[in-house]
């Protein structure tokens, strides 16, 4: 367990994380502004989303974050193998992508007119940019797993911590997107 005060991963990497949080905060505020102006349209279109998909994806990302956190702890603090934990996280992340493909596919097959509906424009834009983060994060998780399986994984703790931090950011951004697009009244 981490005991003394320290920055997880490379301190400079946190500048990128802060930038990403800032950009998504602008997205969240943009969504809130437009929703505040057209509450009826947003509520009606939100009701057409499959909330079960949103819930399932939240469960998948929270679980993947747990596997990553335990994997980092085992590798760094206990000198134990972590590649299975990172593999479990990859499978959860891949599950998120599959669910999203089904979700987008259902909307596209239904022939919805995205351009005429502000909710759908923001939904596809922001969840799409988030999905790009998930795909990038999956690549990062594969690198982390490779590093964890290689010789002397302890020497790659910095890399693994940076990757883990990025994946947790992907998780926390989805937590807010899930609330905004699927849950609020």
């Amino acid at each position, binding site marked *: 367990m981490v005991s003394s*005060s320290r920055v997880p991963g490379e301190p400079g990497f*946190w500048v990128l994380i802060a930038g990403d949080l800032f950009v998504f905060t602008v997205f969240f*505020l943009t969504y809130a502004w437009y929703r505040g102006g057209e509450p009826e349209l947003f509520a009606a279109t939100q009701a057409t989303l499959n909330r079960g998909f949103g819930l399932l994806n939240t*469960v998948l990302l929270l679980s993947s974050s*747990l596997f990553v956190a335990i994997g980092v*702890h085992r590798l760094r603090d206990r000198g134990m193998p972590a590649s299975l934990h990172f593999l479990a996280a990859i499978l959860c992340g891949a599950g998120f992508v599959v669910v999203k493909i089904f979700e987008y596919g259902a909307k596209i097959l239904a022939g919805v007119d995205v351009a005429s509906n502000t909710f759908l424009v923001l939904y596809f834009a922001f969840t799409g940019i988030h999905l790009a983060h998930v795909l990038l994060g999956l690549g990062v998780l594969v690198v982390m797993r490779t590093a964890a399986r290689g010789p002397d994984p302890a020497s790659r703790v910095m890399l693994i911590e940076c990757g883990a931090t990025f994946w947790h950011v992907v998780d926390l951004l989805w*937590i807010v997107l899930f609330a905004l697009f699927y849950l*609020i*009244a």
Partner: protein
Amino acid sequence: MDRHEMRLMILWAVLMLITLMSWESSSRGVLHNPVLLTASVLVLAFVKVRFVILDFMEVRHAPVAMRIALEAWGVIACGSIIALLFHASA
């Protein structure tokens, strides 16, 4: 499994519980006032975000300035989103 792993698993269970609470209150209309429902769902979401930052991202053990900055971000972002959601009806 050591104490830290047990703690992480309990945190995951708490995050799942909060998720289901939000989902249930949103699905069943437990709160009839949409302002209250929206505010409670968003506050619960940012409570989850706070735990992810502090415990999964290990900011609980980071320098205090970093922790304060990220906690402040959560409070300001949550408050601003709620304010903007209801800007037209205020």
